[in-house]
Structures are given as structure tokens and as C-alpha cells.
């Protein structure tokens, strides 16, 4: 079985500085494997081990996503090899364009049975790209995946949906987006990190891939910083809990919050 893990190398917005006008300064933020992607790496490795299969990592983005550290961070997470598309033409690309690039890369890798992805990316946090990728490939897409195992002619997928936990028998190629708590991902050990250096990396040129041009454009009319300054910010020292609580309750009663 050939399994692709589509992951993101991206910064955490928590580390960005948002200016009063709403523009974002990323200079102090560092790229890392996106927060929930390790779950996808773990599910992929377990599925590959159970089926004698191969795990191929895949990521796309601006030229800056291809660094020795980035390669090692991915390859130490149970991958057999890594494929990247790193091109500044993808800088700031919307999710559908990224999905198009991922799809083109998946087709280039060829004979892929399962694409596994995380719940949502740390920097965009919308949980959409993996399912748009399914649409680009023309494959079945399933999200909220809490488990995947080998099955008859395909995989058996468990989904943790609001309505209940559903089990599906899937044959044919499929894109699976894992829920963030599907499994606890193993932490790469020394052996994994050292072994990463020996694994192959292939960089695909964006120009060689057939990525559909975006037809619908987004125009930003205005940006703003969410108004965090509206809060009172009365912070009390709680080293004497009873006293602090008395003050708090008094203030809340005065403010008619209690």
C-alpha cells in the first residue's frame, strides 16, 4: 500500500505580531511541522507497518519551506521518503491553489492508495484543504477520521462525527483527514532523527506540475486587529485567595455580572 502524508511546514500565529492596522509581522515566528500533522504521520506509519506499505511525505509552499531542518523534521516522523514543492509562486496561495499543487504532486508520485492529512493547519486553522485535495483528485474524501486500519481490498475508516462514531469500509483511493485526537503521535527518538539524514528527498518543480490556475480571486478590502483592548484588565494578586475572591465578587456584583 502506498500512503502519502500531506503535511504543512508553517508558523504558529500565536508567535506573530499583529499590528494595530491588522497587518501581520511573522518575523519572530518560526516554521515547524503543523500542530496536528503528527497524528497523520503516526496513522500512516501504523497503516504502512500493518500492510508492508510505504509512507511518502508531501508538502508544498514557498521556497522557504525547503531547509535541512524542515527535511529532517518530516523525515524523522516515520517517512520512507519525502517529496516537496517549494516555490515562491505558492507564497500566500489560498487553500484551493495549495490543494491543486498537492493533487498534482500526488499524481506525479503515482499509484497512491491513501492520502492522510491532519485535522487543520496551525496557521490557517480552517480544516478545509485536505477535502479540497480530495475534490482536486476526484477521490472520496473523509474527515473527522479517528482511526484507519487495513481492510478487504482497501481500508476500514472510523469517523468521530457529531452524530456518532461511524465505521466505513472503503475500497479505492481516498483522502483521509484525521481528527486531532485520533491517536497520540510518537515523539521522534534519536534513531529517527539520525535515520532521517539517509532518507531520499525529491523536489518537484512547480513548473512541471499541471496545477489549475485560480479563477476566483479574493481582494482584501480592509484588515483589523480584533479588539482585545476593550477589556478592563483588573488583575488581583491571589496569594491571599480569600481576600482576592472577596474583591472579585464585590467587583462582579457592582458590575452586575453576578
Amino acid at each position, binding site marked *: 500500500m502506498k500512503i502519502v502524508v500531506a503535511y504543512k511546514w508553517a508558523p504558529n*500565529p*500565536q508567535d506573530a505580531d499583529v499590528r494595530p492596522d*491588522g*497587518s*501581520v509581522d511573522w518575523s519572530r515566528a518560526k516554521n515547524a511541522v503543523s500542530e496536528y500533522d503528527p497524528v497523520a504521520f503516526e496513522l500512516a506509519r501504523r497503516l504502512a507497518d500493518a500492510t508492508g506499505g510505504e509512507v511518502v511525505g508531501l508538502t508544498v509552499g514557498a521556497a522557504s519551506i525547503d531547509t535541512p531542518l524542515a527535511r529532517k523534521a518530516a523525515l524523522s516522523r516515520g517517512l520512507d521518503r519525502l517529496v516537496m514543492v517549494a516555490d515562491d509562486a505558492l507564497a500566500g496561495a*489560498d*487553500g*484551493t491553489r495549495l490543494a491543486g499543487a498537492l493533487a498534482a504532486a500526488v499524481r506525479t508520485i503515482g499509484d497512491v492508495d491513501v492520502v492522510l492529512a491532519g*485535522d*487543520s493547519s496551525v*496557521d490557517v*486553522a480552517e480544516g*478545509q484543504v485536505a*477535502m*479540497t*485535495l*480530495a*475534490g482536486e483528485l476526484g*477521490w472520496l*474524501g*473523509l474527515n473527522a477520521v479517528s482511526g484507519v486500519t487495513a481492510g478487504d481490498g*482497501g481500508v*476500514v475508516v472510523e469517523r468521530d462525527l*457529531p*452524530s*456518532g*462514531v461511524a*465505521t*466505513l469500509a*472503503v475500497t*479505492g483511493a*481516498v483522502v483521509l483527514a484525521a481528527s486531532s*485526537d485520533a491517536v497520540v503521535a510518537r515523539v521522534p527518538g534519536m534513531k529517527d532523527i539520525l535515520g532521517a539524514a539517509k532518507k531520499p528527498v525529491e523536489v518537484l518543480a512547480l513548473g512541471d506540475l499541471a496545477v*489549475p*490556475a*485560480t*479563477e*476566483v*480571486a*479574493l481582494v*482584501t*478590502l*480592509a*484588515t*483589523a486587529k*480584533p479588539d482585545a483592548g476593550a*477589556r*478592563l*484588565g483588573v*488583575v*488581583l*494578586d*491571589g496569594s491571599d*485567595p*480569600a481576600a*482576592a*475572591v472577596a474583591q472579585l*465578587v464585590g467587583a*462582579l456584583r457592582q458590575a452586575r*455580572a453576578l
Partner: protein
Amino acid sequence: MNVTSQSWIVVSDDPAVSALVEAARLLGTEVVALVVGRREVAEQTAHAGVDRVVWLGEPADGTPVEAFAGEVARIIADAAPRVVLGAATPAGRVLLGAVAARLHAPVLAGIGSVELAGDQVVVARTVLGGIAEHRTAVSGGTAVLTLAPGTSADATGAPVAIEEVAATPTTGATITDVRVKEQTKVDLGAARTVVAVGRGLKSREDLALVTDLAEAVGGEVACSRPLAEGVDWVAKERYVGISGQHIAPDLYVAIGISGQLQHMVGVRGAKVVVAINSDKAAPIFAQCDYGIVGDLYQVVPALTAALGAGA
């Protein structure tokens, strides 16, 4: 790409579509609902204040609605509406992903409000995990939007007819089992007071501290993401944050919650925010009305006692 002045909404499995219909009305001259799933959903949608219902028929036993994503994309592409709106739910994202791929259009999420400027769809949304707000115009084709869907429609007024069309699902997936979860019906959105707990809590047993306070203050219990997913101490329906509940209670008490934006974006509309945290540098202290820097294991019981005494 030329589009019509129609708004289409994609409905699957869940007939709670009031917010989708409301936004669709604002953006288009005619509201068409494309329903994937059981007849019951099509019938409830027909009462939801739309102009037309197009239904892909009863799915064969065991066929997931997601298997119809390709058909949904085909039908929407043929219709070329001004806007397509879908629910920000698992199935909604699958169906809209297929639509977006087909139309070569980005999917807009985190939407706060929509408006029509001339012929153009304009949305106000949060981006980048909630750290910034954007006002965005869509041009060049169909706008694809995901929204928290809303509530069920009241069955007032005459329903519209259901137009059934044939649809071939993508084969290869069969639902073999469904374990319905015993859901404690929580309506966090309706609670006037919410007491939320985060990673500052050391063990599951300590939740009693929090539930005691919630009881004393007459509020509901909520949590930040790690307690609903990482450790599974609190039901997922009680998780407040960017991909969880968005609530605006009169009073929000955050216990042992650091105040990361992925959590705070879910409670932005709260009237009064109170924070209890042992770390004076925790971001939440810059986002609260009142805060106590202290040990929650002492402060929370003291607060419960003070409220009980005054009640």
C-alpha cells in the same frame, strides 16, 4: 467566469440551516437548496424559507453523503451561482471542497457577516487562526463560503416542492456501523454564565472543583481544546475555541486557561471575562476584565464558598 444572481446552499444530513438561508437571502435573488441525504432532511429544508429544493434522492443503504461530492460539484458548476454556502461541519467541508476544486475557487471560512456590494460578495471574516480580521471581496466567479449553519427552521409558511434529480455516488465506501453517542444535550450558546477550565487542571478528578463553581454560579461547564481532545476529560461539545463553540455569555470564568488566541476567539463576545491562572504572564490577563493570579486549587474553592455564602 460569468455567474447568475442565485445563491445556492448545500445541505447534508443536518436540516439546521437558518444561518445559511439568511446569508443566502442577503447575497442572491433566488435561494436554491441542494440537499444530499435522507428525504427527511429535504423535507425540513423545504420549510426553511428557500425558493427551491433540489434533492439527490435517498442514498442507498450504507452510502455516505460524502460519496456525492462529485455530483454536488457538477450540479453547482452547471448552475454557476453568485455564491455557494455550506455548513462548517465535517460533511459540509467535504462537499464544499469538491465544489471549490471544480470551480477553482478558494473556500472562505471564519465568516462573521456577509454583504452584497453591487454584484460582489463581500465577507467579514477572521483569518490566520483568529489573529486578524479581514474584509474580503470575491471576484471572477462563484464565492464559496462555509458558515456555522444555524438552527432548524420553524415550519411556518408553505413549503416548496422537492425536485428530485438522479445522482451517481462515487462507489467504494460503505458505512458498516454507526455508534450513536449518548449526547448530553448541552446548549453552551444559551448559557448566561460559563465556567471554563484548561490545562491548569492536574487531573480529571479535580473537575469537581470546576463543576462546584459552575453550580454555585448557575452556569455551564466548558473547556479549552486540550481537555476535550488530548485527555478527553470534558465532552467535545463543551470545547470553546476556533474549531469548537463560539459563545457570548454574560460572564465567562476561565480557570487554568492560558488565553491562547485559538481559545479566546471562541469567547470574544463575552460581556465579562474573569481569569484565574497561576502564571502572571499568561496572555489571558491581557484579555480579561478581572483576573486573579493565584493557585486555582485555592482560589476556585474560595470563590465557590463566597458565592454560596452570598446566595
